Structure formats: structure tokens, C-alpha cells
């Protein structure tokens, strides 16, 4: 179509005008773009650079190696082992399920772990997911060889706690485990280390009480990460400080002997150095393997532990509060002597019972002891003698002496759930029960029944104090990072030396006079003579009717109704080195169930290795040798004999 020249001109002018307008608008937009670029890249560059660095650089904590725990001779009680594990990074794996399937062809992955890993992968966390833990070097090598077929899978190595002397120290050292919410809640400002994956924290025992020393200080590494959170390279590294090594006062070999000697009884034993309070061994039986808890204990294993009526998880040596029974009689005697109510030669007639306000308190010996003085009262454990003198001295004085000897108070050693026990007096009862102290309460307390409760640790402390006359306190930590912890030999108790001597003499007779309750557990070696006291504490009331019929013997009672068997002792008599306490729950009588164990432990502590049979009475040597051969003791590396591991 032809157009008029006028139209053509007009059209061209219009296009020119409009295209200039269009160009102008475009120029304006381009100017805005340029200005925005300038603003962001020049004015705000520093801010954005910071954000970019923030994106790129991540500070990762490097967990320090946990401090080791040794016995007093440097044997490892708690160590660290290399732990190989395999992790998978979701972003690199692509199809996680596919890769896991291929991986389970190479590694033994439990269905449980498989599902857990898959579930974690669905949560879209950028952090690597743990697939398998505690792998052997062989398994890790297999994974390394197959890397091309396993995208996103990588082996890792970390440290994990191991207790080479497993059951021996479960109650002392305790164990570590993964950090729980309640662990975090306990602290105002939790160490950021606690949030690092697979971090282990002390759960009970020395591991938890000495956590501050054992943990160490985290190092850090600056790493470059990609958007998926995967570490691309390390930019810098600052090593942390490993935790402090701790040496315990315990002798691992003695501890092992004690634990083995207690066997499968529900029992506890403590042996300590009389001169400085060093705990040589502190055992609670039955025990358990703390390594199970470190690895994550199975429901089956855990139920087996909780359902066992011997309560393997309870730390009976410090946590158990038992009526001390006759082992308490030294306290009553000392109180009466100190109060001046009796002298060493005071004689009491024992007809087999004690009448008080129409009520009869029986002596364990129905036919009575006849006329007894302090030495015989202790050695034959005459109850009536102590009823009588307790009536004279009163509970408050007895409680005062009891406290002086370390009963009814918490001894601060780094173990869990330490009991205070109970050393009752009039005020305590008034406050606790809003009732007056009854005269019968004093009678019961005088022979360590009634309200009095003590732990094996307290009994050991009591014995050490009687032996030394000093306020010996238990010590468990020998040194931290080779800096010895303070030794406190204890101040003088302020007890009359004559009185102490009289009580010590009585204890000597217990195990050395023919009529002593622990005579059969005597030590033959002249240099190692032992002084002790047996105790048998009732856990049930004996009714009048039962007394009339005749008290049922322990052997005829169900296990959990039998009496507790107790024994405290120290040796050598003339130069005390060690004090021991033994409690066998429902063991029957102290002289038959607890005293032999106490004697064996003292002899073991005083010998280098298994006590020589020459230390034992000739008639018992064959039996003792057989018993010692049957004990499954660890070798120098802490390994059990082959036979017992099957």
C-alpha cells in the first residue's frame, strides 16, 4: 500500500518521538540498576562480605581427650579407645536408602540402626548421620575400599571411654554416657562441647564428680563449609587441652580381690589406710559392666540389672544404710567410758535378757553370759552389758561419740549417692517424729539396732578412728594431673587413750580369744594380728510368740528376711595399717558370713598378692587355698582368666 508523503513523515516522527521516550525509560531503569549495584556492592559491601564469611566459615569444636583414671600404682581403670564409625552425608548420598542398602551388604548394620539412620535422613539435617558405631578396623577398611559405590559415606574416628577392669570399678568410677537433657539442665551455662555429637559426660561416680577435671578444654577448628554444611577444607586449628589424668588411692589388684571375694553375694566392703584415710578398695557386689552403659545398654540387659533382687546397680558401699548391729557396741562402750559411767573393770550380770518397764530385751545368747566386763562383753558380744551401760550414759552422749567416730555424717569422696546414715539423738526424734525419745530406743540403739543406720564406708571410718584415735577421713583421689591431693591424717579425737585401749583390747579378743565371736577368722601370723567386731543386724521383728516357740534360724528363712552380716576390723593390732568393714546383706551371722571376708581382705592388703596360707590357722589352710584357687582374679593387664569369659 502506498502512503502519502505526509503520513510517512508523520509516522516517522511519531516513531522517533516514541522510541526516544522508550529509550529514556530504559535508560532510567538501567540507571536504577546501576545505582542499586553501586549501593549494594560499594556502600553495603562490608556488611554483605561479613554475611558471606558467616555463611562460609564455621567454627567446629575439637573435643579434647578425656582424662584417664588410674589406680594408685598407675594401672588404667578408665581409658580411651579409638572408635571407628561410619557416617553418611545426606546431600552427597542422593538416595540414602539405596546407599544404606548397599552399605548393609558390607557392614553388619542392625535393622534398628538402619531405620534410625533413614529417619534422621528424612529430617533433612545437613549434619552427617551416624550409621554404624564401634566398627572393627576391617569393617572400616571395607567401607574405604568401596567408597566409589557408596556416595556420601565416610568413615570417622573418635575416642570413646573404655573400662578395662569393667566390673571392678563400676561403682567407684561409674561410667560416661551421651549428654542428656537433664545433664544440660543441671548447668547454667553448659559448655558448648556438650552439644558436639557423640560427646560423653560422666553419669555417676568419679566420672561425674571429677567431670570438671576429666573433661579438658575444647580445641577449635575453623572450617569452610558448603551450603549443605559439609566441610570443604580446614582453615585453621587450635588444639584444646586434654582432660587431667586422675589417680585414685585404690589399689586395683586389691579392689579386684575384694570384688571377687564378695562374689555374687549382695555385699559391700571398704578397706582404708588407717594413717591417712586412703581408700585401698571400695567394692559393692554384685557389680555390672560399665562398658554396657557407654555403648548404650540394651533393654534386655538393663531389665536384667534392675530386676535382680541383689540390686547390682546400687552402690552399697556408700549408698547402703544398714543397722550396724553389734559393730556399734564400741561406740556405746566409748561413750560410757568417756562419760565416766563405767570403768574397764565394771561388771554387769547377764541373765540372757534385760527387763525394762515390764518389757524384755533379749541377749542373743538365751542362757546369758553371767558376769561380764567390757573386754568379754565386746569379745562375746553380750547385748545385756550394753543395754545396761547405755541406760546409764543416755543416747545423746552415745550419739556424740558416734559422730566423733564418723557416723551419721557424709564423708565427702567423689562417689554418687553417698548416704549420711543416721546417728539418732533426742532432738532428732523430736523433730522427725514429733515424739519423745523413749528409753527403749536407747536400748535398741546401744546394740546398733533401732534408728541407727550406717554405711560400710562409715563403719570403715569408725574402725580406722578407733584404731588410730585420730579423725581419719576417707580419701579417694590420690592425685590430679600428678599433683597429689591433700592428705589429712586427722586431728586427735580427744578420746582418753586408756578408754580407746580398752575398746581395742576388747576388739582384739573378738578375733583372738577362744570365745570371741570371730575367733575362727583369726589371723595366725603374729605380725599381722587382727582386732575386729562382728555384727548381725535384724531386718525383721521377732514376735513374743516366735521367741516362745524358738527363734527361726537364718537358714530356714527366705533370703530377704535373713539377718545382715557385718564385720569391722583393723590390723595389725599393735601397729594398725588398715581398717576394713564388710556388710553381707542377709548373710546370716556376722561371724560366719562377714568376718572371714574381712580377714581375707585385710590379709590381701598386707600381702603382695594372694595372702600366704601361713597367715591362716592351720586347720583352715586347705579350705582357704581351694577358695583362693577358685577366685577368678585378673592378670596384670586387667584381663580375666580365659575360663571365666566363656
Amino acid at each position: 500500500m502506498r502512503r502519502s508523503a505526509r503520513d510517512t513523515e508523520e509516522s516517522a516522527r511519531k516513531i522517533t518521538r516514541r522510541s526516544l521516550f522508550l529509550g529514556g525509560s530504559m535508560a532510567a531503569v538501567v540507571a536504577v540498576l546501576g545505582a542499586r549495584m553501586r549501593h549494594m556492592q560499594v556502600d553495603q559491601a562490608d556488611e554483605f562480605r561479613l554475611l558471606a564469611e558467616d555463611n562460609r566459615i564455621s567454627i567446629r569444636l575439637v573435643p579434647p581427650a578425656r582424662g584417664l583414671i588410674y589406680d594408685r600404682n598407675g594401672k588404667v581403670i578408665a581409658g580411651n579407645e579409638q572408635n571407628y564409625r561410619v557416617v553418611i552425608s545426606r546431600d552427597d548420598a542422593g538416595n540414602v536408602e539405596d546407599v544404606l542398602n548397599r552399605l548393609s551388604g558390607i557392614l553388619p548394620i542392625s535393622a534398628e540402626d538402619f531405620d534410625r539412620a533413614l529417619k534422621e535422613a528424612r529430617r533433612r539435617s545437613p549434619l552427617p548421620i551416624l550409621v554404624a558405631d564401634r566398627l572393627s578396623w576391617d569393617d572400616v577398611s571395607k567401607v574405604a575400599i568401596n567408597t566409589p559405590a557408596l556416595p556420601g559415606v565416610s568413615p570417622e574416628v573418635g575416642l570413646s571411654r573404655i573400662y578395662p577392669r569393667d566390673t571392678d570399678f563400676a561403682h567407684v568410677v561409674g561410667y560416661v554416657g551421651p549428654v542428656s537433657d537433664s545433664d544440660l539442665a543441671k548447668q547454667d551455662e553448659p559448655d558448648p562441647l556438650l552439644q558436639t555429637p557423640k560427646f560423653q559426660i560422666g553419669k555417676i561416680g568419679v566420672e561425674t564428680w571429677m567431670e570438671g577435671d576429666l573433661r579438658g578444654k575444647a580445641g577449635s577448628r575453623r572450617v569452610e563449609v558448603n551450603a549443605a554444611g559439609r566441610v570443604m577444607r580446614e582453615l585453621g586449628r587450635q588444639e584444646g587441652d586434654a582432660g587431667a589424668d586422675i589417680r585414685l588411692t585404690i589399689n586395683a589388684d586389691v579392689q579386684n580381690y575384694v570384688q571377687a571375694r564378695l562374689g555374687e553375694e549382695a555385699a559391700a566392703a571398704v578397706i582404708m589406710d588407717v594413717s591417712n584415710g586412703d581408700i585401698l578398695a571400695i567394692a559393692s557386689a554384685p557389680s555390672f559392666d560399665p562398658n554396657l552403659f557407654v555403648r548404650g545398654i540394651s533393654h534386655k540387659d538393663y531389665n536384667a540389672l534392675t530386676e535382680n533382687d541383689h540390686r547390682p546397680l546400687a552402690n552399697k558401699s556408700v549408698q547402703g544404710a544398714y543397722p550396724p548391729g553389734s559393730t556399734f557396741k564400741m561406740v556405746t562402750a566409748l561413750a560410757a567410758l568417756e562419760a565416766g559411767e563405767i570403768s574397764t573393770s565394771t561388771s554387769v550380770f547377764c541373765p540372757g535378757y534385760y527387763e525394762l518397764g515390764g518389757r524384755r530385751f533379749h541377749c542373743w545368747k538365751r542362757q546369758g553370759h553371767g558376769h561380764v566386763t567390757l573386754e568379754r562383753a565386746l569379745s562375746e558380744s553380750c547385748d545385756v552389758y550394753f543395754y545396761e551401760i547405755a541406760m546409764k550414759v543416755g543416747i545423746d552422749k552415745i550419739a556424740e561419740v558416734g559422730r566423733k567416730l564418723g557416723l551419721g555424717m557424709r564423708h565427702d569422696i567423689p562417689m554418687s549417692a553417698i548416704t549420711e546414715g543416721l546417728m539418732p539423738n533426742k532432738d532428732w526424734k523430736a523433730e522427725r517424729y514429733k515424739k519423745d525419745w523413749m528409753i527403749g530406743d536407747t536400748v535398741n540403739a546401744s546394740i546398733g539396732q533401732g534408728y541407727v543406720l550406717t554405711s560400710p564406708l562409715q563403719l570403715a571410718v569408725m574402725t580406722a578412728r578407733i584404731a588410730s584415735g585420730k579423725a581419719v577421713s576417707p580419701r579417694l583421689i590420690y592425685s590430679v594431673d600428678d599433683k597429689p591431693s591433700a592428705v589429712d591424717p586427722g586431728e586427735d579425737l580427744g578420746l582418753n587413750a586408756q578408754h580407746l585401749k580398752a575398746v581395742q583390747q576388747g576388739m582384739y579378743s573378738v578375733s583372738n580369744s577362744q570365745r570371741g565371736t570371730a575367733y575362727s577368722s583369726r589371723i595366725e601370723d603374729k605380725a599381722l594380728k587382727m582386732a575386729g567386731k562382728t555384727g548381725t543386724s535384724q531386718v525383721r521383728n521377732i514376735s513374743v510368740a516366735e521367741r516362745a516357740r524358738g527363734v527361726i534360724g537364718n537358714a530356714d528363712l527366705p533370703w530377704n528376711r535373713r539377718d545382715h552380716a557385718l564385720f569391722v576390723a583393723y590390723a595389725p593390732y599393735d601397729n594398725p595399717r588398715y581398717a576394713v568393714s564388710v556388710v553381707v546383706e542377709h548373710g546370716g551371722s556376722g561371724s560366719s558370713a562377714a568376718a572371714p571376708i574381712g580377714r581375707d581382705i585385710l590379709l590381701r592388703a598386707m600381702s603382695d598378692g594372694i595372702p600366704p596360707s601361713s597367715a591362716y590357722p592351720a586347720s583352715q589352710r586347705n579350705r582357704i587355698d581351694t577358695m583362693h584357687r577358685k577366685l577368678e582374679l585378673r592378670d596384670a593387664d586387667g584381663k580375666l582368666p580365659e575360663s571365666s569369659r566363656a
Partner: protein
Amino acid sequence: MSFLEYHHKTVPTGAAKVLHVNWALVVLLVAIASVGFLMLYSVAGGRMEVWAEPQIKRFLLGLAVMFVVAFVPIWFWRNMAGLAYGLSILLLLGVEFFGSVGMGAQRWIEIGPLRLQPSELAKVTLVMMLAAYYDWLDIRKTSRPIWVMIPAALIMLPTVLVLGQPDLGTALLLMTGGVVVMFCAGVSWYYFSAVAALLGGAVTAVFISRGTDWQLLKDYQYRRIDTFLDPSSDPLGAGYHISQAKIALGSGGWAGRGFMQGTQSRLNFLPEKHTDFIFTTLAEEFGFIGAFSLLVLYALVLAFCISSAIQNKDRFASLLTLGIAATFFFYFAVNMLMVMGLAPVVGVPLPLVSYGGSAMLVLLAAFGLVQSAHIHRPR
């Protein structure tokens, strides 16, 4: 003036055409594409074969296409406009029924080895069609309602089809490209004002009615609009991408962090770093200097096109050149506004730089048309 009035003898023929090619424009396009190759090499972590190499091959092919198109006389293309438009509408309908879906919503048709995105093609054919329409139309009728309705319908047809794919970005580019041709052809200001007022009114009504009894949209639709307009309200989704893009861009500073040293792109913080967000990598690694230089290159392309259009006395040629320039402008402007956080993320690539074959081929063919218009201009 129409091509019928050409003094054909003054138009170069044969090999002489080579001398009349707008070489400056060719150099600019090669420069822009080279920036693309460089960045594709960088985001692939220093590897050619991932993106850069296929992109170079496609660019060379596109360049060949451009020259072929350029050497064909412009009046041929004018005559082809209706056919081309019709073909692209057919193809758009074709993808509706036979197309494959990929990358979210962009659809393509596979014809033999060729993978064609009809919506890309439509951008150019629509501009051709409208330019041819106004070349044909009596100038005095330009602003008469009935003659305004026709081009409006021509625009709406492919726009609606593309919108249905759904590809909002391309639909917007199509529409704005077409509107620009109408504007340059001289359609009265009143129409544009009226449409602008109408749109503004509708948008205002939608927003004002929110929360009232006569609310125009459903609640969830409003929430979608919110995320669209303000990605930071969805910090893990679109907001994450846009804020990472801004960090990359801003952290470049004056001179950038150095070639292949951009941490945001190297460590995968950037989304779609080889396609829609490639500009942020350039800005991160070459800084303001690099980013602004690319902007200048784009602006120069526009300047050359507009100047060529003004000088050209052929109505079809002028309108075609302007329409293509405008399409090109909307491409890079929307992309840059998007990555700088000034516009919602709509998925528009950076022309000639972003990785992608069919867009680049079509764009180079379009520049072939611009060249053809330039070579065969009436003298």
C-alpha cells in the same frame, strides 16, 4: 515509507551486505556471550565441558543463524510475519497437548534432535506480527478502538497460552514486548493510561478489600501474593535464595573476590547459579566493575538498536527493531531486578549469559532480524 517504495538499487546485494552489517552490535553480542562463557566456566568449578562448552557451540550456531537471517531481505520477513505468528501459536497449542514439562513449568516440544520452547519463539513472532500489522494499517486508524482491539487480541492469544503453562515470567515478557510495539506505533496515550489506571484500580481493590466483607480473593491466595512480593516472609524457601543472591552480589565489593573465588557460588549457597542467578556470580567474582560493565554492554545494545530504528525509514523495520530491543531489555532488567531483590523471583534468565539453548538461539535469530532491517534499510 513501505518497502514497496524502496529504491531497490540502493540496497546492498550479495557479498556487499557483509559491509553493511551493524558490526558494532555483533561485537557487543559476542562480548556479552563471552562474559557468559567465562561465568559458566567458573560456576562449573573450572570445567569447560559442563556448561561453557555446550553454550559456546550453541552460540556459534546461533551466530550462524543470525547471519543467515540478516542476509535475507527484510521484506521477506515482513511477508513471513503472519505465517511465523500462526506457527508459534500452533506450537504453543502443541505443547499444551504434547509437550514435556521440565524445570518447573517451562515446556518444550522435541522435533527430532531439536528441543524447542515455543514460548521463546512466540516473543519474536509476536513482535514481527505486530510490526507487520502496523506497517499494513493506515496510520490514521492507529488509535481507533477497533484497530486497537486487533493487536491487543494478537498479544493476548499467546500470552494466555503461555500463562497457562504456567510461565508467568515469559507471559509478562511477551505482553510487555507487544505493548511496546503498540506504543511505538503511535497508539494514543489514552489507551495506555486507561489500561494502567484499570490495572492499578484492580490491584488496589484486591489489596484494599483484604480482610473486609467483600474480599475479592481467598485468604490462601493473599498469602501466595505475600510470598511472591516479599520472599523474606518465606525464609526457607524463596527468601533463602534471594538473600543468598544478595549476599553474593554485595560481597563482591568494588573489584570482586577474583575469578573462581566467589565463595557463595563455589560453596553452593547460590541457587540456579548457572541459569537465572548467574549475574550474582559475576557480581561476586568481578565486583561492581564487572557487574556494571555488563550493564553498560546491555545498554549499548539497546542504544544501537534504538538508533538503528530511528534512522530506519521503513515502518516495519523500525517497529521490529524496537520490539526486539524492548524484549531484550525486559529480559535483563527483570533478571537483574530479581537477583538484586527489587522484583519477585519470576524465573527470567539473563539474556546471552545464562545457560540455555533455545532462548539464546531465538534471541540471536531476533538480532538477525535487527541486522536484516539495518542492512536492507531504505536509503
